[in-house]
């Protein structure tokens, strides 16, 4: 029996420590991992908890991230609660198996610390890995600070394992800006956290030898489509379940999360859409812009997949211009948030002027002043009643602006 960990009401934890404690409190049966910067301390802290007697489960050291996720798939199909952590190149190496995990409807939780993808090699934060896993059939939750990294990881288990969902979930926190930044975190006590998630219920476990089952079978054109359509439908219909779980979490923690988070959007003329730690930095820019008389608000999809199209459109129904800020190199297109938000608005007959900004690649700093400049440009579009700024710009890029119009 795992020992109870003494926690203070307020701890000073970085995002990695916060995620590691959430994994510990979930009493995961199997963690299989291959550590990589900047998520290494999640696995390192977890291994320390295990060595110190605070974890009963198995910790499997493997030879690569592909093996890590493969071991997770095996353990989850066998019938256990399973989790891992990764970043960047490790995430990329897992991609093949990410699709396998979701296709087999295995409720694995992966705490991702977001980091740029090479080349050029870079260990710092951006959303390249999150966007790489966009279509992998996982639910993707976003955490903006260490408290949220902890809270989202607890919620992730409950969402993944809900019988109406049974899909794998990632929690995402920005490399270094959250993962290595110590802030005040108010954790739940061990029993409270575990009781919130609940006992693991195995569905069709392979270790139940009296009821043999097959995972990852071959289906050609007669059944593949039906499997994928059903899997997609489960993902799209997970939104109300996620909402229900966020509400249950609010009941015990006092911290209320929403499918779509907003800040000062109710009376806003213009909006910025941004995900991750920059959402909080942008709050300060919104406050400053409002002092200048610009009525601006913020929106963030807390749940990046399934993308909450109708909720986003509803929240943005009164704004005249929207800037979508993407923290990933879009490589031949607009950023993902630009595309999703544009689609959400178009589907609902809304016609706010849309622009796209790329920021923070490879850990490039994005300050309140930088975001304030985006707000001022977006306000120019609203005032002109048409787009007068480039379609796609780069925030805090050195040298030529390289905007696309």
């Amino acid at each position, binding site marked *: 029996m795992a020992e109870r960990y003494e926690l203070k009401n307020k701890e*000073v934890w970085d995002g990695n420590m916060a995620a590691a404690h959430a994994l510990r409190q979930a009493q995961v049966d199997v963690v299989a991992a291959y550590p990589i910067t900047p998520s290494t301390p999640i696995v390192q802290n977890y291994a320390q908890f295990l060595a110190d007697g605070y974890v009963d489960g198995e910790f499997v050291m493997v030879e690569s991230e592909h093996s890590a996720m493969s071991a997770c798939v095996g353990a989850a199909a066998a019938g256990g609660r399973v989790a891992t952590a990764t970043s960047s190149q490790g995430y990329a190496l897992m991609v093949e198996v990410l699709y396998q995990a979701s296709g087999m409807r295995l409720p694995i939780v992966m705490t991702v610390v977001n980091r740029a993808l090479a080349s050029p090699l870079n260990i710092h934060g951006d959303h390249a890995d999150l966007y790489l896993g966009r279509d992998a059939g996982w639910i993707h939750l976003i955490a903006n600070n260490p408290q949220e990294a902890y809270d989202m990881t607890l919620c992730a288990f409950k969402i993944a394992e809900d019988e109406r969902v049974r899909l794998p979930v990632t929690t995402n926190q920005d490399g270094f*800006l959250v993962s290595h*930044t*110590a802030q*005040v975190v108010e954790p739940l006590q061990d029993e409270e956290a575990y009781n919130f998630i609940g006992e693991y219920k195995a569905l069709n476990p392979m270790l139940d030898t009296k009821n043999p089952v097959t995972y990852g079978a071959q289906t050609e054109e007669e059944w593949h489509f039906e499997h994928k359509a059903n899997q997609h439908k489960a993902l799209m219909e997970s939104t109300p379940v996620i909402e229900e779980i966020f509400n249950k979490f609010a009941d015990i923690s006092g911290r209320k999360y929403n499918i779509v988070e907003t800040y000062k959007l109710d009376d806003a003329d213009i909006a910025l859409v941004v995900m991750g730690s920059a959402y909080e*930095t942008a709050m*300060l820019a919104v406050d400053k812009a409002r002092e200048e008389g610009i009525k601006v608000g913020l929106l963030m999809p807390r749940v990046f997949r399934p993308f909450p199209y109708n909720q986003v459109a509803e929240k943005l129904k009164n704004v005249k211009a929207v800037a979508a800020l993407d923290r990933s190199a879009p490589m031949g297109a607009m950023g993902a948030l630009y595309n999703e938000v544009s689609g959400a608005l178009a589907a609902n007959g809304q016609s706010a002027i849309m622009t796209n900004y790329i920021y923070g690649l490879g850990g490039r*700093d994005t*300050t309140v002043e*930088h975001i304030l400049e985006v707000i001022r440009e977006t306000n120019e579009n609203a005032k002109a009643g048409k787009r007068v700024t480039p379609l796609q710009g780069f925030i805090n890029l050195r040298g030529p602006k390289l905007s696309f119009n």
Partner: protein
Amino acid sequence: MLQIRWHSRAGQGAVTGAKALADVMARTGKYVQAYSVYGAEKRGAPMTAYDKIDDKPILDHSKWMQPDYVLVIDPSLVFQEEIVDNTKDDTIFIVTSHMDKDDLLSIAKHLQGKKVYIIDAIKISQEEIGRAIPNTPMLGAFIKVSNIIPFEDFLVSIEDILSKFPKKIIEGNLRAIKRAYEEVK
């Protein structure tokens, strides 16, 4: 918001020092942020660490800051002009050096006209802890200069934060902190 920037070489304990200070201040009810900026380089490379301390939750996740205090824990970095980057007229510098103030400022001209305090944190850590880990003596000097919390309260918190270490290390660090508190000038 109180903002503090540490200049260090990787391995000298600036990250641990920044996190310890954040932990101490959080215990007084403050909101804190402690982070560092470094690349993939290893031990010995110059790096910076940061503390933000406020009465309300800290939302700014950018790395940029205009520090109220600059803490330099490596004696050679005192001579790098980067230590005055983005500082204000009233930013206070606490630097580790074996030199006296006049001699130091005659070489480190970028510090002339600034509020500068000197502590030989390297010597203190070598003599009291047995290793050149100048982070905890710098904390002692910082508490003296800033008077941010009563020194006795600081000692109680830091002893608890260090409690995972062997008794000899804890005692050495406490001696180093107390000595730095007395010797900073």
